[in-house]
């Protein structure tokens, strides 16, 4: 079980801000692949991962990072603070 959280237009496309996901995915990329296969709204949100950023337990990470030991995965577009 992993907590998956979404922000900005990723959240809007998926329709929920967070959810618990039952998964055996080894990497972030594997998890994205799994979610894409679930429903259209996930396929829409993850259509172009180069437009997305990922954080693992609240630290910026990469799509090829391992998920072992990770409790929270966040997907969002590039930040626009400041």
């Amino acid at each position, binding site marked *: 079980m992993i907590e998956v959280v979404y922000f900005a237009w990723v959240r809007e496309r998926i329709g929920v801000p967070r959810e618990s996901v039952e998964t055996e995915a080894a990497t972030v990329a594997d998890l994205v692949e799994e979610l894409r296969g679930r429903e259209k709204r996930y396929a829409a949100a993850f259509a172009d991962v180069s437009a997305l950023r990922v954080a693992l337990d609240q630290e910026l990470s990469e799509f090829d990072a391992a998920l072992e030991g990770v409790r929270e995965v966040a997907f*969002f577009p*590039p930040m626009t603070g400041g």
Partner: protein
Amino acid sequence: MRVRVQEAPFDAGAELDAFTHGRREVGAVVSFTGIVRDTKGGLIRMEIEHYPGMTEKAIAGIAEQAMVRWDLADLLVIHRHGPLPVGQPIMMVATAAAHRRAAFEAADYLMDYLKSRAPFWKKEVTEADEAWVEATPEDEDALSRWQR
């Protein structure tokens, strides 16, 4: 080092005065205030979403990098989230140092990193529609100035 993430408005002038007051070894204070701007006309408000928990950690990390890199007496970061009307401050940074070069560079650095590495997302709400502000290649390029 003072970092605040808040929904409430703040007064940039009062923050600058509080930050500056009573320092004997500071010759230079630089501040940056980011303000909700009506870029195309018709903006009703800006909405800022953030990632509670990560936001504070990311800003603290960026601030610590600035403290290590420049000889600063202190720094301040305030960033708001939630709905923001046109003309209101979104965020501010301030840096205090003995010399002006350190104060300028550190404030500039903080802004570049807060813009692209702190988990905030801006949405512009006009009468006609709502649109997420997109990051620009220039935002990312700005970071390369500091990667020497």
